[in-house]
């Protein structure tokens, strides 16, 4: 899975840019499977991407269009998917989002994630065999009814609390 060291992230979007380019030949956030969240007022930058969570919420697909690949990545079948939106609704951190009738989610570029190579801050790592370690249960309840962008924001604010505390302690 892709591991984010958000303390190092400067918020440049190169992960998004390269993700979009290598998936669609074009550049835009809507084409990216990794989405940067910037909260300028507290200095936080954090690219949100599928965490291969223990619960695998998105795999509760009513059409069985989602399967889990050998690297733990999510694979969406374009023929089975009916664009019903269940996966988007299920994911508690907004890591899967439907754009132009296609569920966009990280596919690890088949094992060679392009975002990793293009991060000049070394804030993104690819770790094999970490599937199923992280639980996202704590975000599930509060994510209900939120749009993917709002879910990502909620996840980022919660995940970066400790970093903020560290910064504040070091400056006082």
């Amino acid at each position, binding site marked *: 899975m892709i591991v984010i060291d958000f303390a190092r992230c*400067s918020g440049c979007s190169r992960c998004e840019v390269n993700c979009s380019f290598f998936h669609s030949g074009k550049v835009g956030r809507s084409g990216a499977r990794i989405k940067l969240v910037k909260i300028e007022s507290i*200095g936080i930058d954090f690219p949100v991407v599928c965490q291969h969570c223990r619960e695998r919420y998105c795999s509760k697909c009513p059409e069985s269009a989602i399967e889990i690949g050998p690297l733990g990545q999510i694979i969406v079948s374009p023929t089975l998917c009916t664009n019903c939106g269940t996966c988007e609704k299920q994911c508690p951190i907004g890591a899967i989002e439907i754009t132009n009738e296609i569920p966009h989610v990280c596919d690890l570029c088949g094992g060679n994630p392009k975002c990793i190579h293009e991060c000049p801050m070394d804030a993104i790592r690819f770790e094999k065999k970490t599937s199923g370690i992280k639980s996202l249960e704590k975000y599930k309840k509060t994510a209900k009814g939120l*749009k993917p*962008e709002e879910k*990502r924001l909620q996840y980022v604010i919660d995940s970066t609390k400790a970093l903020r505390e560290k910064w504040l302690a070091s400056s006082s």
Partner: protein
Amino acid sequence: MIHGYAGHILRVDLTSGQVLREKTDPRFMKETIGGRGMNSMRLFDELKRDADPISPENMLLMGVGPLTGSLLSASAYTTISGKSPMTGILGDSAAGGHLGPEIKQAGYDQIIITGRSDKQCFLFIADDHVEIKSAEHLWGKDIWETTSIIREELRDNAVQVAAIGPAGENLVKYATVACNNSRMFGRTGMGCIFGSKKLKAVAIRGRGRVSLANPPEYLNLCRELDKNILKHPEYKQRKALGSTLLMNALNNIGILPTNHFQKGICDYVDKISGETLAEKYKVKNKSCFNCNIHCSRYYLTKDTEGEGPEYETLCSYTSRIGNDDLEFALRMNAFLNKMGIDCLSSGETIGWAMECVQKGLLNKNDLDGLDFTWGNKKTIEKILNLIVKREGVGDLFAEGTRSLARHFQNNTEEYAFHVKGLDMICGDPRGIKAFGLTYAIASRGADHLRAEPFFELTGRYEEAEKRFGTRDAGDRLADNGKAALVEYTERQALLTDCMTMCKNIGLSMDIIDFEFAARLLKTGTGLNFTADRINRSLRKIIETERRLNIDFGMDSSQDTLPKRFVHEPLKEGPSKDNVVPIEKMVKEYYKIKGWSTNGIPK
């Protein structure tokens, strides 16, 4: 099909509420490229010359370039243009962050805002959806609050917001516009135009993508550029310190503005340097869209936090006004960014007042009882608050130094360091002569970014001879060959502005020449850009900006520098005994441009 460009121009008239979308004309784009070139040509074609800058007649243009928001490193910028309320001539300012790519993704190459709303408003653009929304609840809020509130209301944290603060609302002449809280459209008062149109912000969200004519070839070019950035000799220091590296760099060559350019060496530079800032307060790097230098920084002190500051803010609020307290400067940086005032113009008004008080030309009674001794922090804070609210003497300060000195007279005009009404940046031209020429001839007033002839600081003498006909062009203290250097880098700077890239990568690091840019533009857009064709366009745009300024009432007598830099040699250090022979240099520049001796294009 045309690639790179988004394909549409958006026109919004705030008086009538009318919204029009028109197709981007490929022929117009071939001539103007994008960004600043496109904006300046649009002003030339459409703006009434006698329009009052703060009237509904003035135009407000937001332009991006053909490759903005693409795979190209640092293709992050947006240029905002209009007739400057500060100077009365061409005004424009560029900033990075993430706004430009969002404008592009929403489908626009340029947004043209005219008229004046009768109610306080903000413009919301989500792809084809364009809406003028009420900003009554946002009026009076600072830039950071405004950005947060808009995003919360729209339930979308990814909305990019270009906003003004209270200074823009109150028509401070050098009010800024900001995106991503701290990326500032700083110069020439574009925030004042926002305020005059009762426009608090432009909030934009795009779901489109930037297409490319030849993606594989374009990818190769971008990777080639990336390699050149990473192996550049300045890369490491730029990444660690960003522009704040200039505090020590300029002090080392004796041109760090100290006590309002009375000295070029600052005794306490170690207390206020970029290195000290990074060591004591930086918690991480920050970056504009798709950059691989990441020169910006996030800092925390015990009472404030924020992004930046850039060199110009740091110097303006430390050595230039005699302040050795770095934490205070950081607090002022956050204050300026929240309220939306330009660091350089506000800093110059303060430095001017301090020098005038020192010389006995002004006293406390002239200045609402404020004590303008060097580095007086209480006074600095007080006057900034008065400027934002336009209260008391702050109302005069809010007009800028040119107008301020005209008000007080009594020889104070000699110490108002501006060209054409725009206050000087923090680089003493006596030790960097090509920069001096740039301040004098730049089409928006005393500004380095119109040419940034960084080359003269690199000591590449043999290359200087090859490219500019004399080894002197590589010697910062020589005036010989500088007109040729400036004529070249002026085109390079304009190209960077047209492509809306960062000037560090597009210009200062000297790694994008016209041939390479042509290949990028051609593989990106599919239009037949060549180095020759680009240069023809760039020359035409420079000439057009000149004509526009002449129409606005500018003449060649204004292509000069304040007296100190021409007649008063620096007294110490590595730039000792130098002045700028500006008259001679300007004449040589006109000659190279093929303009008349009065600086009029033929």
